């Protein structure tokens, strides 16, 4: 399949789509006009597809500077009568939360969907938060698809529901839904309006106390009405496998595991799939509970439904046993899988488990941790900084490295070990300010270009104003790297590939009042090291911007130009000092069993930094 087919695929046709791609198609079928995001895995591919097709689809798409801004862009569009779609990873919703909570009060004039991609098992995230709880906190209706087809269909349905009740809808996926491929039958694409018109109505759009007390009342009224829909909607459906002993209440990704296990083993249970999951359909669930002897709740990742079910049972004085996370039938944390559900359901049904003969090995299997790519400019930055610290004879164990969210967090790994604290987007600066005040230790903060625009700037303002002595290293690789290479305000392209003004990090730092600001090329190790030496001895806030494109960008550029430089090691010159292996640690450089050092030509990126690292000039361009 070519990406364009997500737009051009004909009604009635089928595509093998990723959940994230299905979300794009669903938005297009639903007549979306404005789309915004800040990239975050597992939601990133939605943006990657819009980047490629938005222009052709007649949709406005942007990579906003952060999730809060992205949400505001979409909510304004929905207030101006355009259908809008904003998506982010689960923790992105924390960034957007302040505005998010209020938009549920103000409501919207046209359909708006907020998609949160949760990450059970934390494959690429800092926490395992379950944004079904966010829906309850905000009072926003929630849809939970179980596969790509549902993602697509629920986008369209969500727009209609949102418009009907003039309230945004929160769609919750999980990694396994966003990154699941399945067959999607297409509907017709609807062109949304190009421009809207904002009708002034301060009592709806200004959240002063006098107005919000009324909005709060309205919100509850809306939720009561939507709960009535949830009680009778075909989205919340019962699947009777021919037994009333056990009823399984489930939704989202967990539903798939339940179905796989129950159909494969032909177990006679009754299943309630909850898809329009908030407001929780009390009446429907109550009737379901009454129709079975006991209940198993299968959900990822908090016991959200389980507690609501227990509340319903308590409220109605029923005597039913509930199995789930709270009684230990199913694991309390992490993503589920078919094996976990098989064991859980079998236990409740008192089935004797057939013993699985697992094959295993006692051989060691090499670890393959995520690693900075060959040619990654961050490696050069770390190497130069480390040399500067060594040459100034600073005590490394006393330096605090406050790092941030991005590839450079991999500076944690040996040999660099330049990461001591990292909690959220932009935190390197606030945390750095705190350490600078609380200790006499030297503080070095690392942040990427995109993360600097996202939430780093307020921290830098704080450092300057409150005189927190920190060295900020902005590792500007000209891209939002870790999420797959999206544009950001620092590059001359917008979210649709059109030319856009470059926002200058150096200009921002100077404007804020940083006295020493300098941009260096980290591939020039000597100059970078000299700059770091100067910065480390400076009294006050210093900003060093190490500017060099991400290796993946350079790869693409070189491929187009037909440039293919590789390096190799001249074995006659090499003294096996292993500085390139142990101190620089490029994944392309390896040692053979005899101790000789080599460069894997398949992995070598041709950056040439190792040439500067080698004390014997043994690394040469491969002929």
């Amino acid at each position, binding site marked *: *399949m070519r990406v364009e087919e997500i737009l051009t695929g004909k009604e009635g046709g089928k595509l093998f789509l990723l959940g994230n791609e299905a979300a794009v198609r669903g938005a297009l079928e639903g007549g979306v006009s404005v789309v915004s995001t800040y990239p975050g895995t597992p939601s990133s591919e939605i943006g990657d597809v819009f980047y490629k097709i938005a222009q052709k689809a007649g949709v406005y798409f942007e990579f906003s500077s952060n999730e809060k801004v992205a949400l505001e862009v979409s909510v304004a569009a929905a207030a101006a009568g355009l259908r809008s779609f904003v998506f982010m990873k689960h923790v992105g919703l924390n960034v957007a939360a302040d505005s998010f909570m209020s938009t549920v009060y103000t409501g919207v004039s046209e359909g708006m969907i907020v998609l949160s991609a949760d990450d059970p098992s934390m494959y690429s995230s800092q926490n395992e938060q379950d944004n079904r709880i966010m829906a309850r906190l905000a009072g926003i209706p929630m849809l939970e698809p179980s*596969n790509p087809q549902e993602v697509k*269909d629920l986008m369209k349905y969500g727009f209609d529901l949102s418009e009907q009740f003039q309230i945004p809808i929160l769609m919750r996926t999980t990694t396994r839904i966003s990154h699941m491929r399945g*067959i999607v039958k297409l509907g017709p694409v609807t062109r949304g309006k190009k421009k809207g018109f904002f009708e002034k109505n301060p009592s709806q759009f200004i959240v002063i106390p006098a107005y919000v007390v009324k909005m709060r009342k309205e919100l509850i009224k809306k939720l009561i009405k939507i709960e009535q829909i949830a009680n009778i909607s075909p*989205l919340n459906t019962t699947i009777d496998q021919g037994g009333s002993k056990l009823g399984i209440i489930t939704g989202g990704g967990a539903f798939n*595991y339940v179905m796989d296990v129950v*159909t494969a083993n032909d177990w006679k249970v009754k299943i309630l799939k909850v898809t329009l999951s908030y407001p929780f359909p009390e009446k429907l669930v109550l009737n379901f509970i009454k129709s079975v002897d006991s209940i198993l709740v299968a959900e990822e990742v908090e016991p959200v439904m389980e507690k609501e079910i227990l509340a319903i049972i308590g409220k109605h004085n029923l005597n039913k046993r509930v199995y789930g996370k709270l009684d230990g039938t199913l694991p309390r944390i992490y993503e589920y899988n*078919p094996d976990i559900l098989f064991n859980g359901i079998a236990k409740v049904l008192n089935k004797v488990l057939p013993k699985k003969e697992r094959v295993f090995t006692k051989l060691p299997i090499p670890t393959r941790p995520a690693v900075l790519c060959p040619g990654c400019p961050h490696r050069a930055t770390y190497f130069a900084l480390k040399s500067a610290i060594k040459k100034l004879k600073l005590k490394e164990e006393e330096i605090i490295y406050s790092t941030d969210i991005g590839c450079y967090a991999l500076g944690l790994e040996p040999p660099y070990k330049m990461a001591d604290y990292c909690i959220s987007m932009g935190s390197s600066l606030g945390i750095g300010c705190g350490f600078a005040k609380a200790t006499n230790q030297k503080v070095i903060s690392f942040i990427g270009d995109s993360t600097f625009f996202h939430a780093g700037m307020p921290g830098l303002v704080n450092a300057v104003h409150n005189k927190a002595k920190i060295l900020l290293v902005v590792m500007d690789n000209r891209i939002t790297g870790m999420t797959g290479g999206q544009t950001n305000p620092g590059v001359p392209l917008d979210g649709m590939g059109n030319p856009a003004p470059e926002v200058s990090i150096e200009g921002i730092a100077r404007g804020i009042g940083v006295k020493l600001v300098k941009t260096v090329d980290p591939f020039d190790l000597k100059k970078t090291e000299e700059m770091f030496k100067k910065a480390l001895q400076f009294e006050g806030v210093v900003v060093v911007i190490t500017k060099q494109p991400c290796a993946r960008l350079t790869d693409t550029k070189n491929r187009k130009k037909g440039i293919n430089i590789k390096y190799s090691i001249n074995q006659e010159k090499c003294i096996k000092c292993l500085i390139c292996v142990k101190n620089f640690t490029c994944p392309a*450089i390896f040692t053979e069993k005899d101790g000789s050092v080599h460069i894997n030509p398949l992995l070598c990126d041709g950056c040439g930094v190792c040439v500067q690292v080698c004390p014997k000039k043994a690394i040469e361009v491969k002929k």
Partner: protein
Amino acid sequence: MWGLCPGMPKESDRGEKMKNTYKIHLIGIGGQGTIKTSTIIGEAAMKKGLNVVMSEVHGMAQRGGTVITELKIGEVYSPLIEETDADLLLAFEPTEALRSLNKLSEKTFVIVNSIPIVPFTVSLGISEYPELSTVFEELKGKIKNLVLIDAQKVAKEAGNIISENMALLGAAIATPNFPVDKELIIQSMKENLPPETIKTNLKAFEMGFTEVKN
């Protein structure tokens, strides 16, 4: 579930329900083309009218890290394979095959690329890569239906080392019981690979196929 929303596709729109399901586990290293290979199989299964789901790993799985994808064909819902339940295991690297042993049973067919990729952690001395001959012996001892294939050699002979994944794909579909026709896989390759690479990829694919068929 299909057919939840009014006017939406019905359960019957899903692909044909096979009596038996068929489950494929692919494991490799970032950059080897495991995801592309899986997608080609998935789309071919769809073309055949079968229901198919697939799981992918994104995000932190960068170049150099382990990448796992799973495909399930037939009356299935989740894209994850139970332990001991894979029908086919396709490993792009010998030690990576060892990582997935828990998915195997006696019935599983296993294709393993014999070319090792040693991670930098070994050079740093923080992890160990066992002797290759020991790895092969271990695989032969643990796996009944095993094919070891030098996909690098095949790809080189076909014209480009980058076609390793297609050589392995060819080998995979030559195994008994593979539920999707070769012609559909070829069609799917043409729709998923860069046009300028098709010739070499098809050659590698055919050579991989022959390697197992004979």
